[in-house]
């Protein structure tokens, strides 16, 4: 196995970590819709200690893409220019909101920042779905790896569908996370009710997404990819029934698995490409024509092998420290 393949796997691992961890953070943000202010405070406290470190998974995925596959980083970020701008606005508002929300004892002030968190969770969830769908579907990338389309080419119905699927899956994942982290009985009951709806919606969206994948991409040429998606749908339906039965831990573990399998499935379907060109298959970015030199890949492999496990250790320690359920505040 050469270093390019190792780095393809590592990038997939980083995106998987990102979607699992920020997945429930985004989900919690989305679930703040329609809640009272004191309930929203509890929801925020459930992710308060961890959201920032979870977001670093995305930043690391971006930085690692830059280091290992600079052309992929360059083409992806310039292609999604306006979409990423929107995402940045959302992430900026969300990040500041967590910090400033509680700084003034004023209900309008808090409402404003709660709106920022909802916006800042919904938009990135949607846009990451759009981005992943487009990478696999193919975009007008020319022989120089430059994007030859415009902003609206990114927003095809197929891509938007993937975005909606991500939003629903993350919302369901977030609900399962909250059911493990909250103590307020009324909120928990409400979550369980929502999970019923979210679970089936996410599953249906998944089904439509996979059908769309079959028609819109070459996913069928990779049998493993299809198998993984089918298995993920099976796990998701199990998660749905766990959530209904109140088996909170199992429900959360299974949505985690669903997200992991979906991300892996997408990368398997991509392999060995990173970004498909819809103009000519040969113009696609691959793990070879987009990569750094073996030397840089080798150095980065060593760094990742040393530091990623360390990160995992202290991050999981954090979850252990904050395992106690968030009490409702009077």
């Amino acid at each position, binding site marked *: 196995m050469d270093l390019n393949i190792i780095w393809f796997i590592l990038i997939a691992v980083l995106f998987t970590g990102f979607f699992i961890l920020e997945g429930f953070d985004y989900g919690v943000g989305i679930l703040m819709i329609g809640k009272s202010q004191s309930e929203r405070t509890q929801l925020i406290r459930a992710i308060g200690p961890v959201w920032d470190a979870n977001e670093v998974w995305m930043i690391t995925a971006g930085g690692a893409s830059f280091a290992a596959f600079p052309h992929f980083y360059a083409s992806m970020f310039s292609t999604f220019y306006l979409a990423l701008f929107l995402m940045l*606005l959302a992430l900026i508002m969300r990040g500041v909101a967590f*910090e400033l929300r509680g700084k003034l004892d004023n209900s309008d002030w808090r409402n404003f920042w709660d709106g920022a968190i909802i916006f800042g969770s919904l938009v990135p969830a949607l846009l990451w779905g759009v981005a992943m769908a487009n990478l696999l579907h193919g975009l007008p990338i020319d022989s120089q790896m430059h994007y030859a389309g415009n902003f609206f080419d990114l927003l095809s119905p197929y891509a938007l569908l993937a975005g909606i699927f991500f939003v629903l899956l993350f919302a369901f994942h977030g609900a399962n996370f909250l059911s493990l982290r909250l103590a307020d009985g009324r909120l928990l009951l409400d979550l369980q009710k929502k999970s019923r709806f979210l679970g089936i919606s996410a599953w249906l969206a998944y089904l439509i997404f996979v059908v769309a994948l079959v028609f819109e991409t070459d996913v069928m040429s990779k049998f493993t990819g299809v198998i993984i998606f089918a298995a993920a749908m099976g796990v998701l339906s199990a998660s749905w029934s766990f959530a209904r039965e109140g088996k909170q831990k199992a429900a959360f573990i299974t949505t985690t698995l669903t997200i992991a399998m979906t991300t892996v499935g997408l990368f398997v379907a991509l392999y060995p490409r990173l970004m498909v060109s819809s103009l000519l298959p040969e113009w696609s970015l691959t793990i070879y024509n987009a990569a750094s030199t073996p030397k*840089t890949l080798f150095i980065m492999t060593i760094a990742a092998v040393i530091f990623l496990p360390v990160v995992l250790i202290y991050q999981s320690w954090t979850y252990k420290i904050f395992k106690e359920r968030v009490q409702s505040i009077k």
Partner: protein
Amino acid sequence: MDALILSRLQFAITTVYHFLFVPVTLGLSIFVALLEMWYVQSGSYEERIKLKKLVKFFGTIFLINFAMGVVTGIVQEFHFGMNWSEYARFMGDIFGAPLALEALTAFFLESTFIGLWIFGWDKLSEKLHCLCIWIVAFGSNLSAFWILVANSFMQHPVGYEIEGGRAVMTSLFDLITNPYIFGEYTHAFFAGITTGGFLVIIVSAWKIATDEISREMFIHTLRRAVLFTFVGIIGVMGSGHLHTQYLASANPMKLSSIEALWETTDPAPFAIVADINQEQRRNDFEIAVPKLFSFMLYNSFSGEVKGINELQREAMEKYGAGNYIPDVKGLFWSFRIMVGTGGLLLGIVFVIGVIAFFLRDSIKKFLCYFKLMPLLLPLPFIANSVGWYIAEAGRQPWIVVSLQKTAQSISPNLTSWDVWATLIGFTAIYLFLAVLAVFAAVQFINRTTISEEE
């Protein structure tokens, strides 16, 4: 305006804005960590209550600033690909590594332990909790190191070769031990100490003047912050001096542009003011101290310094026809503003130090001045911003000195409309957030008192 100039403007605005918060994070994280150590070690019960409140007080200011720094930092990471894709392609093999290492070794540390620090007061032992903020401080300063490794390469490429039209890393060790990084990192680090410390000075002075209940405690922090900032300013000056001397060999064009020295001279004078005529490539008027520039560079009153015009001729021979002269006027005056502000800061901190340490008993006489001190707060931020202007405008027209020009590095798919939209968007949201964050911080500072009541 085309996409190139708009992208440059956007990068300038977003980095300078980002770097309003970064130095505060670098310095204030260390200051808060020191305060918490004081709290952990303190034996008296009353003092402990007050000290804990003090740690949380400056911790809160730190956190507001930290959040602003984090979110504006994400923009910078995305920016290299969004607006400068050809730069990312050319430099990815080299630039990507420190950026990824920054995320792996520093961002994860900062973000994880800041969460533990904020929410861990009742869950961690005192010592462990204090360790968390030290780790945050370490992570922040480590992240500054990595990004400056990347920046130093752009200023002074080492450990690379050109292969297939792009720069390729030959040695990570050379990259990390780039002689350029020494001056750049120490300068940025001490600028952080200065900025963070000066912020504490201003806040303490304001509280001393306006909040009688808390006055006693803020005299303590004022004293500590004076010493802290003093170390910072001396460090900034020393590292700045050494770095400028180093520039004589590392980037003479930048150096001579900072001094608006058009013709090669031996010994070179130091111009205090000059009327710079960039088009005619000369100064129409200047007041200069003879021999001083040579002395500053070589510690001796003789020594040749190459002028901009000769360096331009050399650059043309080496890299082909073109204009290799940066914005001399902007660099010349930025440098003077930076050094002048630094000197002013030193004087201010000295005077405050005298009051805090030697005129402690008659401090009430100075309260009316202390009340005006927030007006001085912009000083270190101005110095930091013009400092970055010198660093980055001083390498133009290159994005990577001698290897790639800024004009070649822009994403080719961007239209000026794209960049107009994001430029306006970023600027608007940044102004909006600045107002809200400052408002929240000021409200917090004014309504929080440090008393013995629990």
